[in-house]
């Protein structure tokens, strides 16, 4: 039921438009992966080639070490044992909740079906809704039924296509955590597609950031945020600004905000100019600091303030400050750098 999944150097597209190029990633049994990227980056296509709705142009796909897609062959979707939760849930409107969940349980006795349906409804927390009709359910409830329906036949891998996109923002993260718990309970290998990084962080063990059909970086949320491999990932994940700096030695750069020392060698020539990524949490509000900047804009976010600051050199940075530090616009405040992860991009 939970399986290895391996995507190897896959190219794919529609008609003569190439959408994916050289996409590779792997998941171990029970792992939850996420394809994260802006809309139109090809992330849904990844799901569609895994499900078998689209063929691959090159490369291959293995489910549980068995090849299901290659340049020359494409196993039909109904033989892949792949579960899918659609963006619009695609519950069958002519079937009750119970019959929707039962729909994929072929080749079981009706008693076994009944047991499995009850089990799935219990797992998604909706045992009382067996006789309800899809149109009577709220969006979140429909989503849980869609999940139960997809998981009922114990698929090798579960694919989720933007499953939370139609939900209220406050519901999303809560649902994402719930779904993660259900998947872990079922020990299901799963791949989620989303454009929302908070969803990805809440659900996935492993995240692939994708842009223009190419995987930019793979890793945990922590790695993507603190050690982005390129400017796209740095820009797409989290907030931050890029400021110029001069390389002083193998691990240190000098910026207008002061000197930053990294833990690892930068691999850039000493004396050259580079760009440094400064996250809002790298800039600390400290009245005792010698450096200061003027508040240009501020956003109150409950637990903290996000300040947009302009330094005397004209460079702007963001600063995350505890929410009791309320400063007026145009006020000058003291700041200092506290960088854990030094991220440097060569000037191009």
């Amino acid at each position, binding site marked *: 039921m939970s399986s290895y999944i391996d995507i190897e150097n896959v190219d794919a597209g529609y008609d003569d438009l190439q959408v994916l190029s050289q996409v590779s990633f792997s998941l171990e049994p029970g792992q939850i992966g996420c394809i994260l990227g802006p809309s139109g980056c090809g992330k849904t296509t990844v799901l569609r080639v895994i499900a078998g709705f689209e063929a691959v142009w090159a490369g291959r796909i293995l489910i549980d070490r068995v090849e299901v897609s290659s340049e020359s062959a494409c196993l*039909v979707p*109904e033989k*892949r044992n792949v579960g899918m939760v659609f963006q619009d849930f695609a519950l069958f409107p*002519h079937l009750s909740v119970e019959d929707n969940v039962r729909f994929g349980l072929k080749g079981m006795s009706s008693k076994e079906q009944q047991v499995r349906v009850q089990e799935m409804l219990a797992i998604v927390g909706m045992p009382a809704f067996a006789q309800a009709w899809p149109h009577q359910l709220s969006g979140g409830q429909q989503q849980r039924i869609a999940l139960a329906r997809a998981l009922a*036949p114990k698929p090798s891998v579960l694919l989720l296509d933007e499953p939370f996109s139609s939900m209220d923002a406050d519901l999303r993260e809560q649902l994402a955590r719930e779904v993660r718990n259900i998947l872990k309970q079922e020990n299901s290998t799963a791949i989620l597609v989303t454009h929302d990084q908070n969803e990805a962080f809440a659900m996935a063990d492993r995240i692939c950031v994708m842009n223009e059909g190419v995987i930019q970086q793979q890793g945990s949320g922590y790695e993507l945020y603190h050690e982005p491999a390129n400017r796209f990932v740095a820009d797409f994940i989290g907030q931050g600004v890029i400021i110029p700096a001069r390389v002083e030695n193998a691990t240190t750069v000098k910026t207008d905000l002061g000197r930053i020392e990294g833990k690892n060698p930068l691999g850039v020539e000493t004396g050259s100019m580079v760009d440094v990524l400064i996250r809002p949490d790298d800039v600390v509000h400290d009245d005792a600091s010698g450096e200061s900047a003027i508040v240009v804009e501020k956003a109150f976010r409950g637990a903290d303030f996000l300040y947009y600051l302009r330094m005397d050199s004209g460079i702007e940075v963001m600063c995350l400050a505890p929410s009791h530090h309320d400063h007026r616009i145009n006020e000058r405040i003291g700041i200092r750098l506290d960088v854990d992860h030094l991220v440097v991009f060569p000037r191009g």
Partner: protein
Amino acid sequence: MALLFSLPIFTIAGFVLTPAGEIWQHLLDTVLGEYLRNSALLMLGVAVGTLLIGVGCAWLTSVCVFPGKRLFAWALLLPLAFPAYIIAYTYTGMFDVAGPVQTWIREMTGWKVHDYYFPQVRSIGGAVTMFSLVLYPYVYLMARAAFLEQSVCVLEVSRTLGCSAWASFYRVALPLARPAVVAGLSLALMETLADYGTVAYFGLGVFTTGIFRTWFGLGDSAAAAKLAAILMIFVFTLIVIERWSRRRARYHHPTYRYRELPQYRLRGWRAGLAFTACFLPLLAGFLLPAWQLALWALDTWRDMVDASFLQLALNSLQLALGSALLAAVLALFLAYGKRLLDSKPVDAAIRVVASGYAVPGTVIAVGVIIPLAWFDNRVDALMSSQFGISTGLLLSGSLFAMMFAYMVRFLAVSIQAVESGLLKIRRSMDEAARSLSYRPLEILLRVHLPLMKGTVLTAMLIVFVDVMKELPATLILRPFNFNTLAVRAFELASDERLADSSTAALAIVAVGLLPVILLSLGIGSSRAAS
């Protein structure tokens, strides 16, 4: 598959190019001018008639309030249940010299038959009136839908800019509804061109009657096919106009904020006028002829309803039911194939099949019989030379040929319904079922069919009724001694046994009421939704 059903259309199209025979030259010299003139006159008259009745009633029932408005909104569709040829016999029976109306006039005034002028029903003017009375619902339906869809804002803007209610109608509402009206009008004109029963009964020389005469009278199939080809050019012009106006209709929605239209409350003589304007078409197009038919049927049904009549009814029923089922299955097959394959050639082939509905039954019959006869002759020749057996006519003149012609003509209806039903089912439904290990055919049975039960049934109902009413193709293609209600009604009426034909006619009208009721229910629910 789709190509098979477009074969007759291509056959006829091919005859545009074939060299002309002697008879063709003769036709050209003698009757072709008459056919063209009569057809043009008919179309012009029907256009004016259906526009006046259809648009007028649509406007009244959609934006004015007067007594009976809700009733008229759907009752105005009733004339759609009358095939033109049946209303034509009925009125002829009512208004001819020996009919009840003229008899009554003579009794009241003491005039003799030649003392007064009375308009001839069996004339071009009569035909125009008959067609207008039963075909205006096409224009009415489309125009009403367009009026109801119009944004209230544009009408209110025109009022604030100083247009009166009438001026708003002429300068804003009507231009906005024009594409829909033109689409409805071209449907009405297609039906006019396709008609055989009425014009044959009235003795008018138009293309459909010409095809019959050339085929049966002169025995020249090539010339008949050439006439059919010319008729088809007319029809395709109308199709192009219809498509074009529908496409334009899409751009005619300046805003998507729809509200209930402004309701002009009519009182006094205005309300009476509106009531009369809506009541007259209903009276003349449905109530009067239905009343007359019922009277006749009451007189004659004891003599008419016998074993052979029941046999006719059974024939009609079986044919219609069989065609409806077959059309639904074929339409599902074609539309589902298109959904699965998503290929351009399949798409184009289905478009051609779908144009069959616009092609007159006469043309299709000729287009069916030519290739089938060719096939029969080939098989016969082959069998005679190889085995010494003459197979005779295998397909032409068989039920198969009839069913085939019905499919060519009516498949479009069911394809359209099935396609629109399929379109409403999101692709993710298919994919969800496939990811749950269902094969495409299982998905069709377990997901699609249950979801579009309603649409498929509607499609079957419409084909059923159309086949019941169908006259010209049945007349040409029916096997020897095989009759349907429609053919029987036509034959009896042609023998001037109008009263005797009424039972069969009434049966056809009764069946024809079914889709009209369905349509009016649809209209009712769409109003409830708004």
